[in-house]
């Protein structure tokens, strides 16, 4: 991928030779940054998505130029930071008179993700965290090319290719074992684990043919996706004097094809629009897996946990029909009705061999055979009224009905893990949203929305293996009902020509209700969210803008776990506050100043976690100040020096360390020099 990026950049820069010295548009912004970081540099890298120390490259590159008499060339690079592997840009060559005649694009979007390598944290025991000696960086890059052109006056063609490549190491949330006292005491799982993604390559091809026949717009699209992924998961245990580790090597191959045929027609001067869609999907995936547990020092296998040559072969196919009708009911009512029907079929065949001692010989094998078949319907209705001046109410309703038959058979050669069931699953969904947009005055905008969203999942087992208190062999849900209510309101007021105020409020309550098989009653859980966001924008003069914004969010989830004293778990809290302040001041034609201050903090998310054994609340604070000056030295040259400083503080109960950073940066922008 990196060689391909270099090739892309080389090809992109070739036209500079052509452009230089002519009247064409040319803009280039090289940038140089230097980060000084104290304390937890790994956490800094993760949270800021950047390496520290020196980073250089391009912040922007624009090239616009005619290519001959009919074509235009347009290169737009948004980022090219070499140390960060960060590139984003599009090269476009098109017919200047009509893009439908020729339009070629080639683009790239690549970056690194960085991860903390300390896993979990347990402030109450020593050591409170562990460190794996790995640099966790995952490269994520996309390269694409599209070409659009007519084919022999027959139809218009859009051909696309995308290569999505990932490679590197990322942190897992599956953690290894430690103990509350060195090698003794209770087991707690917080030793870091990671996945080494040796490679993930996704190749996508798409061919879209479109043509208009007697007013009918017809599209036929073919999509093909081929995936190969090889992740290696490592989990380290530090619960004994002879540390062990788990290594799971997986090879995954995926194949998906979809064909979509769509027709759309406008009737009666666009007062009626109708479309029909048919889509066929066929996909498959194959997985091969080895999982071994061994002592790190000697490589000797640990008894009972080794699996070799596991294989799975899965297939899925789906037919989907859709209809979409929009009609103007009179002058001011707009009614959209949409429908969908789908048929789905999936089958899987897998074997899972296990070596339950250390001799390298398979002792028993799970043979797995699962399938599901079913169908579903979806309906949607949207009614919008635009008959009143400055007031638009709307109503949206959605219904969905799905029926699925699940068949799962797992036969173990030693009968230890036998599992089977046949379940008829019915899923019903019902969503209603109503609201309005309004301008009661020219200087005031008001919108409000209320909604309710209901899901009902009903499971009926017609064939099922019996479970026991110590072996979880059977499916167990009879009925699952989730219901959400919520409201959103936004009000924007501009009382003076230079003053803008916005306020948005959101509230929602989701109730989860599960009924276990043969249980006397269902159990309810709740998740409640409250969000407030206010923005105050002052533009007293064209050259001065001040924006102050504040966000407050409260999220609480209550479950039955907080009422059970033996394994007491407090309600989960995920609230936070954010304050943002931004000042832009154009001192004159040649100098502009900009300052941003941001503070995000959450300080009320820890309850008493003593009963859970592992504290996982989040209390933290993040501060950041950025100032920059834009100085136009000449008509075509601008220098932008900037300075940034920030800090990250986290509760010692939740993580290991903090960081402070300073950033010095300078950017030069040259235009048509």
């Amino acid at each position, binding site marked *: 991928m990196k060689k391909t990026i270099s090739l892309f950049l080389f090809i992109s820069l070739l036209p500079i030779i052509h452009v230089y010295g002519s009247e064409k548009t040319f803009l280039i912004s090289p940038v140089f940054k230097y980060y000084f970081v104290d304390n937890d540099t790994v956490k800094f890298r993760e949270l800021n*998505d950047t390496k520290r120390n020196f980073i250089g490259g391009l912040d922007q590159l624009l090239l616009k130029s005619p290519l001959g008499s009919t074509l235009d060339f347009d290169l737009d690079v948004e980022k090219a930071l070499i140390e960060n592997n960060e590139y984003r840009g599009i090269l476009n060559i098109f017919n200047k008179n009509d893009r439908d005649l020729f339009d070629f694009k080639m683009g790239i979007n690549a970056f690194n993700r960085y991860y903390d390598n300390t896993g979990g944290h347990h402030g109450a025991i020593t050591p409170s965290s562990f460190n794996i000696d790995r640099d966790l960086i995952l490269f994520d890059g996309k390269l694409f090319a599209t070409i659009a052109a007519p084919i022999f006056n027959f139809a218009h063609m859009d051909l696309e290719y995308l290569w*999505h490549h990932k490679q590197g190491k990322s942190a897992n*949330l*599956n*953690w*290894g074992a430690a103990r509350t006292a060195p090698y003794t005491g209770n087991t707690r799982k*917080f030793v870091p684990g990671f996945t080494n993604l040796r490679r993930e390559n996704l190749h996508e091809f798409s061919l879209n043919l479109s043509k208009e026949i007697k007013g009918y717009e017809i599209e036929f699209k073919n999509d093909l996706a081929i995936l190969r*992924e090889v*992740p290696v998961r490592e*989990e380290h245990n530090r619960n004994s004097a002879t540390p062990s580790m788990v290594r799971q090597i997986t090879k*995954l191959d995926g194949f998906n094809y979809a064909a*979509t045929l769509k027709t759309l027609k406008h009737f009666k001067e666009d007062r009626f*629009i109708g479309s029909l869609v048919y889509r066929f999907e066929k996909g498959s*995936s194959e*997985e091969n*897996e080895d999982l071994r547990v061994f002592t790190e020092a000697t490589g000797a296998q640990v008894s009972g946990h080794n699996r070799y040559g596991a294989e*799975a072969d899965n297939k899925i196919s789906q037919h989907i029909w859709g209809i979409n009708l929009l009609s103007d009911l009179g002058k001011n009512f*707009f009614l959209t009705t949409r429908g969908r029907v789908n048929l789905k079929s999936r089958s*899987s065949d*897998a074997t899972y061999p296990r070596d339950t001692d250390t001799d390298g010989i398979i002792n028993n094998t799970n043979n*797995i055979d699962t399938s599901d078949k079913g169908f579903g319907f*979806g309906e949607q209705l949207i009614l*919008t009224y635009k*008959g009143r001046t400055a007031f*638009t109410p709307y109503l949206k309703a*959605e219904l969905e009905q799905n029926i699925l038959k699940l068949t799962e058979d797992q036969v173990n050669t030693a009968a230890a893990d036998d599992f089977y069931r046949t379940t008829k*699953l019915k899923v019903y*969904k019902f969503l209603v949203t109503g609201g309005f*947009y309004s*301008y009661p005055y*020219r*200087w005031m905008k008001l919108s409000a929305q209320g909604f309710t969203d209901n899901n009902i*999942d009903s499971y009926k087992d017609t064939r099922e293996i019996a479970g026991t*208190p110590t072996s979880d062999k059977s499916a*167990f849900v009879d009925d699952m009902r*989730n219901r959400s209510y919520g409201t959103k309101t936004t009000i924007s007021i*501009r009382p003076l*020509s230079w*003053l*803008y105020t916005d306020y948005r409020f959101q509230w929602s309550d989701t109730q*989860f209700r*599960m009924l*276990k098989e043969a*249980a006397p*009653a269902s*159990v309810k859980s709740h998740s409640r969210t409250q969000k407030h966001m206010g923005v105050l924008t002052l533009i007293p003069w064209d050259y001065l*803008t001040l924006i102050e*914004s504040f*966000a407050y*969010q409260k999220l609480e989830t209550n*479950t039955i*776990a907080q009422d059970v004293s033996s*394994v007491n*778990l407090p*309600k*989960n809290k*995920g609230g936070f506050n954010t304050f943002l302040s931004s000042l*832009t001041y154009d001192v004159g034609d040649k100098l502009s100043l900009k300052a941003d201050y941001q503070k995000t903090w959450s300080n009320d998310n820890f309850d008493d976690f003593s009963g859970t054994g592992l504290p*996982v609340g*989040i209390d933290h604070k993040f501060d950041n100040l950025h100032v920059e000056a834009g100085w136009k030295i000449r008509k075509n040259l601008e220098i932008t020096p900037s300075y940034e400083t920030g800090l990250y503080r986290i509760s010692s109960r939740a993580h290991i360390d903090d960081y402070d950073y300073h950033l010095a940066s300078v950017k030069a922008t040259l235009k048509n020099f």
Partner: protein
Amino acid sequence: MIQKISFLIVVILLFSCTPKKEIVVNPPYFRNASRGAEYVGKETCATCHEKKVRDFKLADHFRIEVSGVEGVHGTSCEMCHGPGSLHVEGGGDKTKILNLKKDNESCFQCHLEKKAEFKLLSHHPVLEGKVKCTDCHDPHGSDVQPWSAVSIRGTNDTCFKCHAGKQGPLSYEHEALASSCTVCHNPHGSIHPKMLLQNDKNLCIKCHAQVDYPTIGKRSAHSGYSVQGTCWSAGCHTKPHGSNFDPHLRY
């Protein structure tokens, strides 16, 4: 005393001036980003972008257009792309119009809270410029949210565009995914790792709750494990998205 005087000045400033007729509430971002441009109306846009304008009636965002309001919200395209006169005068100059594929700020003018969520510890790198709102949302589409009951594409196809390894099909699929990835993740941002909505066992127990908890399903032996960590981090249910080999998503 100083506070009272300051307050008085603010009140006088705010309420002594009756808003003038030409003051129209519109996104303040447009004032600087499209400086000098005027609203031209969707009919002008249609001269070049005919199909986009014609089909906009089918879009979710069509409902935002309010009749009888000159300027931003009576003009479909310009309510997101900003006033377009300079773009028109420049013969379609792309630098004179807001392009949502490059600039998310236009989206944040209405979706205020999303910008705050992208500032949280775990988030998709939108403000960093690595991902754009339009990578997941189609503002011209019938489903501006990535999925509805009548979408032709699958529930989580938007997520699978980048997270292809999670797509399956698998032998045992976590049925929560049939509802949506958002049952467990907030794709805009969260204070918890991996953009999880909850970072402890409440994430799972909110659905897997039963009267005889800590028994889960028919297995009562969860008490000993539940103090070791979360359901997915304590080495047990390590495949929360689905498994090819275990109905309980352990390996």
